């Protein structure tokens, strides 16, 4: 029984991690139809921001939760202004350019900080369920995933800024004729997405090694999750994370982490074969 | 007369919208059928169900008595159906001749295809465009080149979705002559808007309204019917 609880918690933690890691990408793709292949590197920069800040004495929670989104949000704003803005509407070109950006970030960070893995040890220790122990940080991650999803939903549905953003995404010309500057909306949305990615990096820094290429471990999963999720940005990501995260964790338990990842890919491919527009292309179509 | 193409209670629904609401019709060999109706009446959606681009929600489609409802567009084309889309579908990077050759290449060798392709281009009076890249052609010319691609493989049935869209009066006139001439050898179904064009070619007309067939009759009777006029003017019709 205790073991079942542990497994359930692990599955939830796996799903939560996938949500956290995919949310920034979902916002940018879902709202702007921009495929940011440097999303993994935004994550990596967030991780580095957390590590460096903490290494210089900043409080752990501030290093993980506050600094990374600010830093990476600013990076995102710069990237949008200099690169993404020139390529709107050109989906393939955006993919390619952001891929170049991702390589550049990896190279730059390698030059600055070298190739070695650093990290922060996970705070909050562990707690016991019967004979088994599990990391309390996993519970924190689950909470973080829930809070972030709620936050995104709340901002988009309940705030005037969110409404503006959604309107602009649906029809930029219409929004412009109502006095909204689409450029500004795009810039803010992209930065927000980047900030979310950076925050994700900070959040997973204690459970993942931070090195220049860490982003590459997550980009594939995040992408697959967002695309399998379908058009509804938030619901799709949550649905896909739940499905793919569970399958991946279960397989990891039964075999090895690598097979867990392979299982995720296979399930996603099968899903896309059956539902070519993603999960929310068929179900829950009018959700956010 | 053999029935070439028939539909039976065809329904096409998208989410909450029923674009085609139980359409039953039959086209005979050698017939010239016009499908008319105001915007949003479901003509183009019906067209895409026929070509296999949409899988109908319910109902069936028959070709010479055989159920072809679930066929992919390429399979429908192979039956001997020539399809001309509303927005011209052409190979912009290829020359007019290369495009028509490809249309023939599935059934003929290289030399035979070139020969027939030239004939098709001449028939449509665009032979002079043979070596011009299609992407550079004017809209009316594109329509004619596309017609050449559709006609060259000598299909049993040609279905055209608004073939005169964007054509000048002169080109529309030429197109009408062309359709009548083509009808001597192929059955034709035309989905159209342009009433002048319809009047010039129409024999049997099927009128669409809100996804259903309002009436289907000889052209003169359809044009004289007050309901058809009302439907075009947007008045409610039972």
């Amino acid at each position, binding site marked *: 029984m205790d073991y079942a609880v542990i497994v359930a918690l692990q599955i939830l933690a796996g799903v939560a991690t996938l949500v956290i890691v995919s949310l920034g990408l979902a916002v940018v793709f879902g709202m702007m139809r921009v495929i940011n292949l440097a999303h993994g590197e935004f994550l990596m920069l967030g991780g580095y921001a957390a590590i460096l800040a903490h290494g210089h004495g900043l409080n752990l929670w501030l290093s993980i939760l506050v600094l990374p989104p600010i830093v990476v949000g600013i990076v995102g704003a710069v990237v949008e202004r200099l690169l993404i803005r*020139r390529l709107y509407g050109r989906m393939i070109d955006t993919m390619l*350019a952001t*891929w*170049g950006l991702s*390589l550049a970030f990896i*190279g730059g960070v390698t030059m600055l900080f070298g190739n070695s893995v650093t990290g922060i040890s996970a705070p909050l220790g562990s707690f016991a369920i019967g004979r088994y122990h599990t990391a309390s940080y996993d519970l924190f991650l689950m909470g973080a995933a829930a809070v972030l999803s709620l936050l995104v939903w709340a901002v988009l549905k309940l705030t005037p800024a969110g409404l503006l953003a959604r309107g602009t995404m649906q029809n930029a010309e219409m929004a412009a004729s109502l006095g909204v500057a689409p450029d500004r909306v795009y810039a803010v949305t992209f930065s927000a997405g980047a900030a979310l990615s950076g925050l994700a990096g900070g959040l997973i820094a204690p459970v993942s090694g931070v090195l220049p290429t860490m982003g590459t471990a997550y980009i594939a999963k995040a*992408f697959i999750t967002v695309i399998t999720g379908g058009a509804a940005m938030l619901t799709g990501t949550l649905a896909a994370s739940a499905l793919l995260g569970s399958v991946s964790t279960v397989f990891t338990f039964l075999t090895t982490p690598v097979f867990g990842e392979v299982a995720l890919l296979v399930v996603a491919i099968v899903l896309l074969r059956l539902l070519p527009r993603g999960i929310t292309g068929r179900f829950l179509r009018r959700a956010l | 007369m053999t029935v070439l193409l028939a539909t039976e209670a065809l329904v096409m629904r998208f989410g909450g919208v029923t674009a085609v609401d139980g359409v039953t019709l039959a086209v005979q060999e050698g017939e010239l059928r016009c499908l008319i109706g105001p915007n949003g009446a479901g003509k183009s959606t019906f067209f895409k169900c026929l070509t296999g681009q949409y899988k109908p929600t319910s109902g069936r489609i028959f070709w010479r008595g055989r159920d072809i409802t679930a066929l992919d567009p390429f399979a429908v084309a192979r039956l001997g159906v020539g399809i001309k889309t509303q927005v011209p579908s052409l190979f912009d990077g290829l020359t007019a001749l290369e495009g028509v050759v*490809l249309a023939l290449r599935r059934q003929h060798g290289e030399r035979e295809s070139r020969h027939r392709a030239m004939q098709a281009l001449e028939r449509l009076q665009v032979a002079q465009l043979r070596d011009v890249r299609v992407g550079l052609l004017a809209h009316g010319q594109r329509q004619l080149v596309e017609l050449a691609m559709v006609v060259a493989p000598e299909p049993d049935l040609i279905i055209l979705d608004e073939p005169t869209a964007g054509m000048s009066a002169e080109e529309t006139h030429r197109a009408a002559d062309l359709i009548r001439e083509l009808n001597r050898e192929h059955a034709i179904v035309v989905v159209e808007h342009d009433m002048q064009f319809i009047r010039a070619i129409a024999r049997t007309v099927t009128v669409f309204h809100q996804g259903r067939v309002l009436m289907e009759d000889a052209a003169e009777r359809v044009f004289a019917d007050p309901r058809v006029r009302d439907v075009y003017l947007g008045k409610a019709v039972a």
Partner: protein
Amino acid sequence: MRRAALEIAAVVLVAALAALGLPQVLELFALINATVFVSMAVLALSLGLIWGYGGILCFGQTAFFGLGGYAYAVAAINFGDTTLAVPLALAVPTVVAAALGYLMFYGRISDVYMGVITLTTTLILFKFANSTAGDEWNIGSAPLGGFNGIPGTPPLNWPFDPASQLAPEQIFVVAVVCLALCYAAARLILRTRFGRVAVAIRENELRAELLGYDVRLHKLALFAVGGLMAGLAGVLFANCVFVSPTMFSLSYAGQVIIWVLVGGLGTLLGPVIGCILIQFLTTRAGSFSAVDPNLLLGVVFMLAVVVVPKGLLPSARTALVRLAKRGGA
């Protein structure tokens, strides 16, 4: 027909000159480097064919590159003779490409999703190959070696004569011959009905379908051919470098795309020239510069996409195409 024959003849001539001349002129290290360039050029050609002509943007062409290399190494070590290892090494990536192609094209998956799936495939293979250190990861007598790769891949030997292995100079000749053959094959394929339909599909998939062509099958077949060629590049690479997970890496995957983009999307020689040129420059740059190669590559990539509308350097491309036309593209 005459034009194609002329073009192929010209390329064969250049290849013959290179194959016979360069081993006389270059010292061993430079010659082995040249062999690497040539094997990469075959990889670039494979993507140039399926992307530039078929419109298939595969982000993970390196998947088939790596599979070819690994299949060759494992087979050669196990058989003790490379004669049958080569066809096996070519079959593996081709079959995988066909399977992946079936999943993607018969699922009518769009461009974007295809890019994601192919990219993910190569990344998964990368991760998998990296995790194969340790004895339980042997296939027959060949250790997969984890992130170190497979040690001691045997070089090609003369058919059915395992004792006489080819010298590096001879491997260079084999590589050049392979490049010329792949080019000729690609040219010829493009002239067949199949090839022209594939190009038409790139131009307008709907119209190709409405003309009665099975679009999915054509894309699948072309994709498999691309996989075969990339696998061949992998075999050549295995013979002049060594087989390791890097063959599947994101970095290599990106490089292939840059070569094709910068060299000229829509030509066959463009990617080849782009590949050799960029590799030459990066090796030169890498030897004295303090700049990380990823950084350099990334910046080149971004510039290539942004500065030019079609993602190409226009003057370089026109010059390259003119060069290629004179040489016989």
